[in-house]
C-alpha cells in the first residue's frame, strides 16, 4: 500500500467510527424530538410566514397572491395603539414580577434547602390549578357587586361600588398571577447559586448591606433577572386569555387581536403578520439576552 491508500484507509476507518460512535447515537437520541419540532413547529411557522404575505379572499380564506399589505396595516394607529398598550402592560407586569419576585426568591434562597423546597412548592401550587378557574375567580371578586367591592363599602373605605373589572389594572393583576412563578424560579436559581463568600468579602471591605446588594448581589444575579424578564415579558405580550377573562372586550391586547383575526373576522393573513411581529419581538429580546449574557461571561440556566 502506498501512502495515499493508507491515508484513504485511515480516513474511511475514521468515517465508520464516527458514524458508529457519534452519528447513530445522536440520531436515536435527538432524532424523535428533531422530527417532532420540524413537523409541528417549523412547518407551521413557515406556513404562518407564508400566509402573512398572502391576501384574504372574500370568504375569509387565503388567496395565494404575494403582498406586504398585512404588515403595512399593522402601522395603522388603531393597531399601533394595541401593540403599544400590550407592550406597556407586559412591561408593567414584568417590572412588578421582578420587584416582588426578587425579594421572595432571595428570602427562599437563603433558607436551608429543605425549607426552600417546601416554599418553592407553595409558589408552584397555584400554578398547577387551572388558569381559567383562577382568572374567573378574580373576575368574580372584582365584580362591582362582588365580594371585594361589598366588603370595602361595608367597612366604609369606598362609597361607590368598585369599578375595577375590565380595566388595565385588573388585567395586570391577572397577568401577574399567571406569570409570577416564571419570574421567581430563575431568580431563585441564580440567587441560590450566589456564593455567600462574595457578600462576606464585600462587607469585610467596608460596604454597607445596601452597597453590597447593588454592587455585588444584583450584578452577580443579573443573568437570572434577565431570564425572568424574558420568561415573563414574552408570554405576557402575547397572552390572550387573561385580557379575555378580565378585560372583557374593553382591554384589547395584541393576543386578543390575533385571536380575533383568526376566529372572528377571519383575516388569517393579517393575524399571521401580527404573529410574526410577536415572534420578531421575541427574537430581538433573545438576541439582547445573549448579548448581555455574553458580556458578563456568565450562564444562567
Amino acid at each position: 500500500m502506498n501512502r495515499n491508500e493508507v491515508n484513504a484507509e485511515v480516513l474511511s476507518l475514521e468515517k465508520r467510527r464516527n458514524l458508529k460512535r457519534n452519528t447513530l447515537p445522536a440520531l436515536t437520541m435527538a432524532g424523535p424530538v428533531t422530527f417532532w419540532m420540524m413537523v409541528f413547529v417549523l412547518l407551521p411557522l413557515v406556513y404562518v410566514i407564508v400566509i402573512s404575505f398572502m391576501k384574504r379572499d372574500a370568504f375569509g380564506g387565503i388567496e395565494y397572491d404575494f403582498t406586504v399589505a398585512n404588515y403595512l396595516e399593522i402601522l395603522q394607529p388603531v393597531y399601533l395603539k394595541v401593540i403599544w398598550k400590550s407592550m406597556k402592560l407586559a412591561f408593567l407586569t414584568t417590572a412588578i414580577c421582578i420587584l416582588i419576585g426578587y425579594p421572595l426568591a432571595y428570602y427562599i434562597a437563603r433558607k436551608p434547602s429543605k425549607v426552600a423546597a417546601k416554599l418553592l412548592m407553595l409558589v408552584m401550587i397555584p400554578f398547577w390549578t387551572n388558569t381559567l378557574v383562577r382568572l374567573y375567580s378574580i373576575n368574580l371578586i372584582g365584580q362591582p357587586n362582588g365580594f371585594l367591592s361589598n366588603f370595602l363599602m361595608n367597612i366604609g373605605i369606598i362609597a361607590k361600588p368598585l369599578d375595577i373589572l375590565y380595566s388595565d389594572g385588573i388585567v395586570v393583576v391577572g397577568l401577574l398571577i399567571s406569570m409570577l412563578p416564571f419570574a421567581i424560579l430563575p431568580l431563585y436559581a441564580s440567587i441560590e447559586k450566589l456564593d455567600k463568600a462574595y457578600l462576606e468579602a464585600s462587607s469585610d471591605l467596608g460596604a454597607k448591606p445596601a452597597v453590597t446588594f447593588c454592587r455585588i448581589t444584583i450584578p452577580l444575579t443579573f443573568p437570572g433577572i434577565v431570564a425572568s424578564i424574558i420568561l415573563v415579558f414574552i408570554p405576557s405580550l402575547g397572552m390572550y386569555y387573561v385580557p379575555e377573562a378580565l378585560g372583557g372586550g374593553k382591554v384589547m391586547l395584541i393576543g386578543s387581536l390575533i385571536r380575533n383575526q383568526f376566529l372572528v373576522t377571519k383575516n388569517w393573513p393579517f393575524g399571521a403578520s401580527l404573529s410574526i411581529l410577536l415572534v420578531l419581538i421575541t427574537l430581538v429580546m433573545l438576541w439582547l439576552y445573549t448579548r448581555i449574557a455574553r458580556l458578563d461571561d456568565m450562564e444562567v440556566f
Partner: protein
Amino acid sequence: MDGHAEYIVSLVDVDKFFGSNHVIRKFNLNVRQGEFLTLLGPSGCGKTTILRMIAGFEDSTSGMIKVQGERVEDKEAFERDVNTVFQSYALFPHMTVFDNIAYGLSVKKVPKSEIRERVKEMLELVQLMGFEGRKPDMMSGGQKQRVAIARALINRPKVLLLDEPLGALDLKLRKQMQIELKRLQKKLNITFVYVTHDQEEAMTMSDRIAVLNGGVLEQLDTPDQVYKFPKTKFVADFIGESNLFDGTLEVISDETARVAGDAGEMMIECCPVEPGEELTVCVRPEVMKYSKTPVDGFTLSGIIKNMIFVGSQYRTLIVMDNGYEVKVNRVKPDKDVKEGDRVFLYWDLDDAVAICDRK
C-alpha cells in the same frame, strides 16, 4: 481591663454554639501588635470560626472580642477595621483585577485619583503590574491569591485575617507564597492572624502559634517552644512526631526523677510535678535512643519491627511489649541491629519533656 494596649485583638472567655454544638469553649487569646499569629489545628477544631468571629461574619455566643481595645461584638463586619483573605479568594467575578482591589476604597468614596494611585501601589506590592484589566477567571490560583491579598490590604487594616489562604495552591507555589506573605507582613508591619491546618506552614511563618483542639486553646507559644515543650499530649502528637509514655512520678532527687509506666521505668529531668502524680513523657523520634543492653534507670524495651529509608532519614519502628510503636529517626542507618532484635530504649534526660495535662 483596657490596660493591654499592646494587644491588638483580644478574645476573652469566648464561647460559640452552633445549635447545640459547642464549638468554641472559654476561649482566651491575645494578639500582639505587629505579630504573625497562627491558629493551628485539625479540621473542625474551631480555628476558622474564631477568625470569622473576629471578622464579624459569625456572632460569639458569649464572651468579649476586642480590636484595638474596643469591643466589637455588636459591630457588623463592614464596621470593623480588619480585613480578610478568604480561602476561596472570593474575588468578585464580574469585576476586573483593578476594580476588585479598588473595591474597599470605592465603597468608602475615596477620590478616583487616590484610588488609582493606591491600587497601583498594591499591584506593585504583590507584583501584578499589568494585570489591572484581567477578570479573575483568566488568572491562575497564585495570581488570584495575590489579588485577594492586595484587595484586603488596600484598606490598610490594623489586622489582616487569613483563612487557609494557600490551601488551594500546589506545594511549590505554596512554599513561595509562604515566604512572600512573611515578607509582606514584615514590610507593612501589619498584624496577621493566620489559620491553617498545615503545621509546617505554621512553623515557617509564625511568630506565635495557637494550637487548637476541639474548640479549646491547647497551647500558645513561639514555634520552637511549641515544638520543644508541648504542654499537652495533643500538641505533642499534633506538632511533629512524638513518642509518648504514660507513667507516675516516683522518686524525685535534686536533678532527676524516675517515672514508672505500664511499659517500664524511665528517667527524666526534674520537673515541677509532685511525686505520685501522673504524667506523660514525650520524646521526639530524632532524639530517641536504643541499645542492645539495658541502660541505667530505663526498663523500656521492644522488638525492631522494621527499618526503612524515608528519603531524608532512616526510620526505625520498635514495637514495645504493650503494642505501642516507638519511632526512631536517624540520619545514618544503624548497622549494629537488624529487624527482630530486642533493644532497650533510653534518651538523654534533657531530651524528654514531661507533660502533665491529665485532668
